[in-house]
């Protein structure tokens, strides 16, 4: 029987964001944008969705006069990611 995949993570960009954050303490918006190659608009929409789901924590501050958005993974996000990877593996048959 196939396990259902978490729809929140089953999107290229959202999965990329969570995968990036899983291995670091925190990363800012520009770093995530650079690494994922996403547009700023799309990225902020997806970050917002992940934050609303409680998968990531978003801190807004200022770097000089420019706003700085720093993201980090939550325990919930980390657990969801782990589960998602396990489900993926079960599809591959490992």
């Amino acid at each position, binding site marked *: 029987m*196939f396990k259902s995949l978490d729809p929140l993570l*089953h999107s*290229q960009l959202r*999965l*990329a964001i969570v*995968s*990036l954050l*899983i*291995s*670091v*303490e*925190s*990363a*800012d918006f*520009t*770093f995530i944008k*650079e*690494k*994922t190659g996403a547009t700023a608009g799309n990225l902020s929409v997806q970050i917002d969705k992940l934050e609303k789901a409680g998968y990531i924590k978003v801190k807004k501050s200022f*770097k000089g006069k420019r706003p700085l958005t720093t993201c980090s993974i939550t325990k919930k996000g980390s657990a969801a990611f782990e589960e998602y*990877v396990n489900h*993926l*593996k079960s*599809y*591959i*048959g490992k």
Partner: protein
Amino acid sequence: MEKESKEQLALIEEMIAQSRSKISEGSIFYQLWGWLVVVAASTHYYLLNYSEFKHHYIAWPILMTLGGIISMIIGFKQEKKKGVKTHIDRTLSYLWIGFTVTLILVLISMINIGPEGAYPIVILLYGLGTFVSGGILRFKPLVIGGAVSWILGIAALYVNFSDQLLLIIAAVLFSYILPGYLLSKSEKNV
């Protein structure tokens, strides 16, 4: 479905690799502190042995405060530029905060144990700092440099205060300046 799953896993692997490619740019700190300690200890050695100046230790508080200010500025700038904080960054910052607090407490304890009692502990601490950093960064020269400081720290227990200053210079040369130089070379190769 299997193909899609494989693609998703490949994406995850790629992103994790991306976040790992940013290694800590710490070599500047090893070199900065290494050279500051060399200058402070040499000045101290010179004033102690070849002058009548009462405050022969004067270079220490001046240069160490200067080092603290420069480190904070560099650290702040690096963090701003990097845009990411890794688990290694956090582990290292806790190590060096712990190191600094212990160092300050040892320096305060000089009131009771005297400088000749405190300096060997300072050298041993230098060893601890670089040994652990070397392990975290998987960089052997730092690990070896740390071990060298431990040997010099023990040796410092058996010499007079003036010679302890020379051992401090040797300790930072092997534990900080040399590995710091090698680390900067390996960072450039990444």
